[in-house]
């Protein structure tokens, strides 16, 4: 198991841009060879040597290497000149060679069998040496990559059992295609405000489930940090004249609307996540990505608060909770923001209310399934059940159904 230490990639502070056309484009490749091994074996994940041993004992085969090779093949078909820098053996070299590449190798020797620590070490060894880091694995692998604090944008080749994080392409072939498109693009116009989200890369959340709990039937996603991934740019097609330009719903647009709706004298509890982080950024406040923060009248009242502290901070004044959707299942309460405890939520719902932040795209990805609250207290969950306002962009919102996870998934 990887450590649960919470980190944010250093790359988000100083995003590295793709090289201009003509320069050699270097892709780092890291493969978690045992990723996905637990899936077909019905083991709901592959974290930990013991699970991997059991899976292999059940006859599971190693498929992450082949999926990584598919991605490299798709990349090279479009960018034959791309250089591959990777780890000797099954953590990348084998896949690169299977795809017909002649890789350059890091001088590190991974353990046998390799572990999450080797993934992290490989990412660290590639710092400043690659333009894009391609890794094959699942959410656990993404966390290991995050721990390595990559210096460049990252793209996941889905090869794990759990692939809920936003850093994965939809298939190995598309990972290669996206990598090739990223390599082609010259440094994108950064915009004039320096936010750096325009063009080249966007931030994607790394979430993972607690596998132990998952095996017991509890879905418990948690946000671990964010990685910068290549933005899939609007392409030439689809620019239909008979339509309004652009899709609403960037994190900045959502944040702008949140700030526009903030009222004087009212307290706002900001949950973890990249979108709530954008709210803090817009207010010019040092809010935290993974913690719960409290703001009021444009000031940071408290950062990264614990439940007990929060209970005092929401006492006796109008307070609203502003939370985002964690993972692909629709959880908004009780996952990664347990600081907003039943007691805290009861006070908030008595004085103010709950607001969810999500793009229309993310809501639509739920395919009509409800948002979920799982504070552990059915009474507290019941307070938010029904339809909750979801801010989806500038002057735009949706009303979306929210249910108690206990009702949605009765044990």
């Amino acid at each position, binding site marked *: 198991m990887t450590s649960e230490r919470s980190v944010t990639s250093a790359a988000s502070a100083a995003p590295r841009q793709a090289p201009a056309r003509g320069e050699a484009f270097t892709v780092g490749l890291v493969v978690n060879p045992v990723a996905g091994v637990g899936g077909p074996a019905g083991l709901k994940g592959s974290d930990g040597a013991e699970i991997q041993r059991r899976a292999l004992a059940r006859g599971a085969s190693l498929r992450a290497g082949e999926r990584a090779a598919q991605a490299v093949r798709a990349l090279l078909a479009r960018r034959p000149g791309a250089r591959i820098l990777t780890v000797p053996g099954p953590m990348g070299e084998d896949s690169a060679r299977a795809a017909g590449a002649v890789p350059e190798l890091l001088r590190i020797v991974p353990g046998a069998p390799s572990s999450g620590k080797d993934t992290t070490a490989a990412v660290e060894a590639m710092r400043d040496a690659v333009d894009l880091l391609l890794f094959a694995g699942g959410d656990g692998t993404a966390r290991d990559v995050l721990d390595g604090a990559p210096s460049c944008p990252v793209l996941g080749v889905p090869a794990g059992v759990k692939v809920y994080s936003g850093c994965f392409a939809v298939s190995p*072939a598309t990972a*290669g295609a996206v990598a090739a498109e990223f390599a082609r693009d010259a440094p994108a116009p950064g915009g004039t405000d320096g936010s750096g989200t325009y063009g080249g890369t966007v931030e994607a959340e790394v979430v993972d489930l607690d596998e132990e709990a998952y095996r017991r039937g509890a879905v418990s996603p948690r946000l671990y940090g964010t990685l910068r991934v290549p933005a899939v740019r609007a392409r030439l097609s689809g620019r239909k004249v008979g339509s309004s330009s652009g899709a*609403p719903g960037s994190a900045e647009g959502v944040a702008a609307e949140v700030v526009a709706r903030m009222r004087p004298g009212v307290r706002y509890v900001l949950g973890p996540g990249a979108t709530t982080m954008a709210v803090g950024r817009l207010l010019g406040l040092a809010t935290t990505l993974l913690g719960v923060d409290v703001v009021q009248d444009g000031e940071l009242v408290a950062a990264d608060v614990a439940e007990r502290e929060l209970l005092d901070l929401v006492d006796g004044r109008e307070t609203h909770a502003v939370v985002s959707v964690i993972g692909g299942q629709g959880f908004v309460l009780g996952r990664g923001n347990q600081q907003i405890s039943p007691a805290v939520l009861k006070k908030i719902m008595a004085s103010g209310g709950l607001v969810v932040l999500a793009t229309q795209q993310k809501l*639509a990805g739920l395919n009509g399934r409800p948002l979920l609250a799982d504070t552990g207290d059915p009474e507290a969950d019941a307070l938010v059940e029904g339809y909750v306002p979801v801010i989806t962009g500038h*002057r735009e919102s949706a009303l979306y159904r929210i249910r108690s996870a206990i009702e949605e998934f009765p044990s």
Partner: protein
Amino acid sequence: MSGHAGDSFAELPVAPKPPLRRFHQARWDEPIIFEQSRPGRRGVAVPAAGVPAVELPASVRRAEPPKLPEMSQLHVLRHYVRLSQENLGVDQAIAVGQGTCTMKYSPKVNDRFVTDPRIAELHPLQPEDSVQGVLEIYWRLERMLAEISGMHRVSLQPASGSAAIYANVAMIRAYHASRGDGERRDQIITTMFSHPSNAACAKVAGYEVITLMPDENGYPDIEALRAAAGPRTAALMITNPEDTGIFNPRIEEFVGIVHEAGGLACYDQANANGLLGITRAADAGFDLCHFNLHKTFSTPHACGGPAAGASCVSEALEPFLPGPTVEFDGERYRLDADRPRSVGKMRPFLGVTPNVVRAYAWIMALGAEGLREVAETAVLNNNYLMHKILQIPGASAHWDRGRLEQVRYSWQGLFEETGVHSEEIGVRAADFGVHYWTSHHPFLVPEPFTLEPTESYSKEDLDEYAAILAHVADEARRDPELVRGAPYNQTIHKIDPTSLDDPKQWSPTWRAYTRKHLA
């Protein structure tokens, strides 16, 4: 004349055509018009003043002549005729690929009416007695659209469908303001798959927009509507069938919920082609609706306009219509500009007259029975094409339910397998003389393509179109690089769009291009 059979290199009968057309688009390799200029030439002569010249003060006099091209008349004409040949109109192509845009045949005879000087050379402020014919056309078209929608009055002033949506929002705003309710009602509710212009126009008019997401079945969530509707609701703005082609059967309930909350219900009828004579906006209780004359009523798309829109309203909304309106007293037609509660002008003068004339003539060529035939055939064509498309491995349509006049499909299966994007499939399909459009926001259907075959296309056209897509999908599997490298049979080859987003390089005009790249 004696035959030389020995020299023959081909024999009669001519071999049958191959399954797919061996198309090649015109490729004139035409320079930019500025590159064809030679000082001293000109394309048209201008009348000389014939009266004393006026000396302009230096403050308003142009210092340098504009650097326009200098060309003789034939060469201007030839340049543009060549460019026109490098373009695909409905008259050449099987244009079923532009879903939501209802590409249909625009009868040639209707173009003749609008090039007649008694339309083309009319000034919009002529005395009413000199324009009785064109006013009658406006009046009669208004009455026909009122019958088709079931609404009370219609304004033909909006310049397009989106402009008609905007006019409807403006009337909604004026209606609530007239009741002293304008400040409070500051929200407009729409649905995820309504055309995005509904949300955009509402925002321009100052409204906050609440979007209803689709439920598990693909219909907008009616319970979310119940939760959203209230004293702040100005209106529901909804497309039906939505851009997915799915008709919402509970539409009357939606309207009822909004009415109960004191809001208005506004129907985006851009997708009306399958509904003519089948069901009407007014019958579901709507207060306003709009049509696109360039979609449903056959006026040509003209490379992106001029178009024309029609805003249709119930009796309660009539006072707010854009002015002037055309009125008829049984003998003569006149313009009524004295409308104190009107939202005012949406555009100059009365409307996009050439398209009003064309739409009128089109309906007059079909009548009630013909319009119903149009709707039924559009729906049948669409379902037939869907049947053909879904047989192509890798193509799918979200939500397993009936479709009316269009379908938003997905190449997601093919994409995951091959890494080839929908857009790349579309570009390759153009090598066979067709085109398609992917999707606008919301990008919920992955790797989308949206087809709307209208009533204009024959079964043979639809078979050919489906065969082309099947062929390209097959190519994507066998040789993805072939598809990605397309086009091959077009006017130009694959474009590198990188510079278009780089302020240092982008060249939105020849002036910018020469400054940045030729200096």
